[in-house]
């Protein structure tokens, strides 16, 4: 697959802080690329530079191999992390307004069906629930039938059910062959939706690749967690375990052997937890802090 957008050594500084520090990546056409990181990591700033909302201090962005030009805004769709619409308009009117701003338009009936907005068309946009509002904002992002869709933390603040419904919508867009570039700090969201991810922390990409490939590279098959207070007196840390907060954690390819070792040491296994590594674990390993505590 060819890259639809390529970023090379992107830099953005604000007074006293280097928000984006030499970020480079390429997004294949038709794929879903995720930028993962905690709040303040630089992922939204990176996205805004790609959207053309914010200017970079350095670096290069090429869309389909050439620098972006005035037609770029016609072929991209954007859903911001937080945004507002003009007051006193219905869902239908909001869709018509944004459709009128583009030369290329997707049939609104099709869009309404895709984003499940049929029953909301005459409702005031200020009276939508969180999930309904996100569906409208997604529809607005797609109103020009874009080739490249930017989604900035699209499910933040949604309840679990609404989040999963939204994932289905994004999956539908993926199946239409559109390229999606999304930011999130929900690891599950990235695992479900993204073909490739870049983990970003303090303005730098610290890992990049397919989610499963990244996990395989950095972790054995399973993680074993034992609460520290379950360890017998006199045992500070079992061999192969690391202290991470209140837990002793070991990454292992042989769960049976690890359990046998803990049993032999007299560790109470009541609160033992065995799991497969997640992207959150990956972030913790790479940075020393969790995704939502940075």
């Amino acid at each position: 697959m060819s890259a639809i957008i390529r970023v090379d050594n992107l830099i953005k500084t604000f007074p006293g802080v280097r928000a984006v520090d030499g970020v480079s990546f390429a997004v294949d056409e038709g794929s879903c690329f995720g930028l993962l990181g905690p709040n303040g990591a630089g992922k939204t700033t990176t996205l805004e530079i790609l959207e053309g909302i914010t200017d970079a201090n350095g670096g290069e962005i090429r869309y389909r191999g050439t620098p972006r030009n005035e037609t770029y805004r016609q072929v991209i769709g954007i859903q911001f992390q937080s945004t507002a619409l003009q007051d006193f308009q219905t869902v239908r009117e909001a869709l018509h307004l944004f459709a009128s701003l583009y030369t290329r338009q997707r049939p609104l009936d099709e869009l309404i069906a895709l984003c499940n907005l049929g029953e909301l068309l005459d409702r005031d946009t200020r009276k939508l629930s969180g999930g309904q509002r996100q569906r409208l904002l997604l529809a607005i992002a797609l109103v020009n039938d874009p080739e490249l869709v930017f989604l900035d933390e699209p499910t933040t603040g949604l309840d679990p059910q609404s989040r999963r419904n939204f994932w289905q919508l994004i999956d539908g867009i993926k199946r239409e062959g559109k390229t999606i570039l999304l930011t999130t700090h929900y690891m599950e969201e990235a695992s479900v939706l993204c073909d490739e991810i870049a983990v970003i922390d303090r303005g730098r990409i610290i890992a990049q690749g397919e989610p499963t490939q990244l996990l395989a590279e950095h972790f054995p098959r399973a993680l074993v967690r034992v609460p520290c207070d379950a360890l017998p007196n006199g045992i500070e840390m079992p061999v192969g375990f690391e202290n991470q907060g209140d837990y002793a954690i070991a990454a292992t390819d042989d769960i049976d052997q690890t359990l046998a070792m803990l049993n032999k040491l007299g560790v109470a296994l009541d609160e033992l937890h065995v799991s497969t590594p997640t992207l959150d674990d990956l972030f913790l390993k790479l940075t020393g802090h969790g995704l939502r505590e940075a």
Partner: protein
Amino acid sequence: MNFKRISAVFVARNREFYRDKAGLGWNIFMPVVMVLGFAFIFSNPDQNLFKVGVLGDPEQARQTAFLDSRHIQFITQEDEAAAIDKVRYHRIDLLLDLRDTPRYWVNDDSPDGHIVERLLWQSFNALPDTLTREVVSGRAVRYVDWVLPGVLAINVMFSSLWGVGWVIVRYRKNGVLRRLHATPITAGEFLVAQILSRLLVVISVTCLVFVGTDLLLDFPMRGSYLALGLVLLAGSVSLISLGLTVSARVRSEELADGVLNLMSWPMMIMSGVWFSLEGTNVWAQRIAEFLPLTHMVDAARRVMLDGAGLADVAFEIIVLFAIGGVLLAASARAFRWQ
């Protein structure tokens, strides 16, 4: 410029205005209530000061005892024709010309003019044969008639400044501008849509208030409707552009509110809306010349009260459009989406 995009934003902004019932009601009823309030308050004015216009050199004019009279304000007049019109419409009680051929003008329909004329005669031991009496006639201009053009202009000012300036700052703060910036619409197209929308609102509301107050108060309209319309249009353009300039970069609604108040209050006080600037501090008059509201009020008053035509107020119209053009160019250059 893409007119389809301008039209889309124009329609959305209009919809936002007319569906906001509270805002719409305030825009229409506030000026009507203000005019009626003034009509009531000044229905029987207790005027304790007479006004006499003086043509010619004040130093030379001081030679007459009349000019030392107490309780009379003497105001130097530059333009003889304009000064005579002031007598005609009771804006001054008498006009005294002590230049080459001493004479005075008085309106026989004006009770105050009659009293001042008696004072004039008494100030001379023997009335000079050469002092010629000129009589003019004309219906008295009530204070409410005089203040109405100013009230209409103030309504235009508030609607233009807050209806554009404050709204754009609100759009910037809550992210509406950011969302629009993500689309192909340009800053110029967005600003044009805002100007057109506000012009429609300002002109519609002003026409409505004009007709409504005329039905209630039967005020004089002696000049050209075309001239008045162009004064209204030019004044609105200049004040909307001023609102755009204030909102070009400001992100805080509180700051915008403060700056808009800082601009509107001096204009309201110094533009001759409530009282004539004649006889006031020279510096205040000079500063007032730079305020768009001054030109708007002055031109509208001359059209409505003095019967001025398009040619008579062409200067003010040009000045207002020029102010609008300069401010619009500055705001378009300074405008930031975020």
